[in-house]
């Protein structure tokens, strides 16, 4: 009996792609972190922070949540708005009823509650597939919308339908200014993204992709399909719930069930389809597209034509143009902006290669 030396075993290890030196990667990360955590708050004005960067980051996070479910585990859902509202109302009630908990813990717990609700809704996916599942997630969406409107307990019996959010603070530092809210959102998004990247490269992520590619085949080779699907619903709704809480507290400043309606679900789905399904970076690209495009259309249209047509017509025109652009984009780049980015990168690599 011969013993195999470890050097021989190493030869059988899968060939690794040539990686850039570790130190350079870390320097890149450090520079990027310095720019977004220190540079942006110093340079950007309140309008950019409040109206563009914060909603962009939160929608990216919601996109990330849905992408884990749809792009990685292959379970399409239109309940995103509903899960966001669960996160928002759960965090609100935790802040209100358990004020001794620090804000990050309340945010995380709010996310966990949303995750549990998502998992309950995900039970349907064990039996129902495809478009039937999409249509039945609408049941969750409409039920949650109705629930938060109907029962005053969730909004602490506030007389108006929108309630103002409690003061945001971590360890005594006030975060209610634009910079504070930006940093809170950015930190949450950074942490969740890091966890999500680890997750999709783990055993769990591979299970999800096997289920997405063909769940019947996955179950035949012994992959735990049911628990994989439920896990995907839990993690996805957790992330979406945190995004909903941030949307209410860091962006709007109020908890309002109407801001989590079906249109929000469609918006997040557009983000991941335009950005790229099954891609982490795609969520950011898609969210940037969805946040910037309406602002751009607004400037382009109301600039030269401002005052010439009335506001209602302008809105219709914008809507038609937006729909047209979406169709055009789906035709031109059906794999999303992430595919475009990777093609650009390959092109650059070819150009710079000796």
């Amino acid at each position: 009996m011969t013993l195999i030396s470890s050097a021989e075993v190493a030869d059988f290890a899968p060939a690794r792609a040539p990686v850039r030196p570790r130190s350079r990667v870390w320097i890149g990360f450090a520079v990027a972190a310095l720019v977004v955590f220190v540079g942006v708050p110093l340079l950007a004005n309140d309008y950019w922070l409040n109206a563009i960067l914060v909603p962009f980051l939160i929608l990216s996070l919601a996109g990330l949540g849905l992408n884990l479910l749809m792009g990685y585990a292959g379970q399409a859902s239109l309940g995103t708005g509903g899960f966001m509202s669960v996160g928002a109302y759960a965090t609100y009630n935790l802040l209100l009823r358990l004020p001794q908990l620090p804000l990050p813990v309340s945010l995380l717990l709010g996310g966990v509650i949303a995750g549990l609700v998502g998992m309950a809704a995900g039970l349907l996916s064990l039996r129902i597939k495809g478009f039937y599942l999409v249509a039945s997630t609408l049941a969750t969406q409409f039920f949650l919308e109705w629930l938060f409107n109907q029962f005053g307990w969730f909004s602490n019996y506030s007389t108006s339908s929108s309630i103002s959010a409690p003061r945001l603070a971590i360890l005594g530092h006030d975060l209610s200014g634009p910079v504070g809210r930006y940093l809170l959102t950015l930190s949450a998004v950074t942490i969740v993204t890091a966890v999500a990247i680890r997750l999709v490269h783990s055993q769990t992520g591979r299970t999800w992709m096997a289920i997405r590619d063909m769940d019947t085949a996955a179950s035949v080779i012994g992959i735990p399909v049911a628990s994989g699907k439920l896990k995907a619903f839990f993690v996805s709704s957790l992330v979406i719930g945190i995004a909903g809480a941030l949307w209410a507290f860091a962006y709007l400043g109020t908890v309002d069930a109407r801001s989590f309606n079906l249109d929000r679900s469609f918006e997040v789905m557009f983000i991941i389809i335009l950005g790229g399904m099954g891609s982490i970076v795609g969520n950011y690209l898609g969210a940037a597209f969805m946040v910037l495009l309406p602002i751009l259309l607004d400037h382009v249209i109301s600039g030269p034509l401002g005052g010439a047509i009335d506001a209602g017509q302008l809105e219709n025109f914008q809507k038609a143009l937006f729909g047209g652009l979406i169709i055009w984009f789906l035709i031109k780049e059906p794999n999303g902006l992430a595919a475009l980015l990777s093609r650009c990168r390959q092109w650059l690599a070819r150009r710079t290669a000796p």
Partner: protein
Amino acid sequence: MNFFVETLVGGLLAGVMYSLVAIGFVLVFKASGVFNFAQGSMVLCAALTFVTLREKNIDFWLAALITLAIMVAIAIAVERVVLRPLVNQPQITLFMATLGLSFVIEGLSQIAMGASVHELDLGIVDTPIKFGDIQVSQFDLVAAATAGVLVVALSIFFSKTRVGISLRAIADDPQAALSIGIRLQTLWQIVWGVAGFVSLVAGLLWGARQGVQFALTLVVLKALPVLIIGGFTSITGAIVGGLIVGAGDSLAEIYLGGLLGGSVSTWFAYALAVIFLLIRPAGLFGEAAIERI
């Protein structure tokens, strides 16, 4: 007891109106596998066009004919501009494209014809008819009869005509159908045209009942549970699903709404649909997918 029967009958007849919208979905899904979210905006577009023509004192049948021509033109444009470049893409991409399409149709038809609420009078007298002790809305009866005629006509169209048989071939196996020389693209145009005709009928009936306004697009959300219950591929299913949803909805609003504080109808139909799905995952009349590995 009379009250119960009246609610039930009213609900059943209202359900037929949902079926009308659901049939448009079924046609498109059967022939092209597209989950067409723009069906609601097609209903709005047809109703708006018709009512605008009628307000210009154009004869009823001429107005209907012009509207139909516009709906067919839209169908051809949709096939050329949207469906043809997106062929072989994942279904969810096509679904998103129809969502974009609904924005375009809604935006353009409101630019062209305004966003105000129009009255639409089809000349149907809406006085209740008495059957014994039970009152039934005459308008609802006419609507139900129209839907019935439409379903019979469509069934004959699908089972007897050459076009209908080709459509069934495509639904069965697109590759095989293409290889024996069936023109897929022409047939898609025809199907979307027929869906346009169905949305014209739905638009007229819904418009006469609710007024022609933007809220007409929301009937699509009422038609979805109908579709889930009946199955995406069955016209019979759309009718049966409509009856179940209509009856369930109005009974729930009366008997369950009181217990829970009202307005349960936004989600009740969906909850009902989910219960049906848990028992039959492809709807009552849908074809269960056979998976091969």
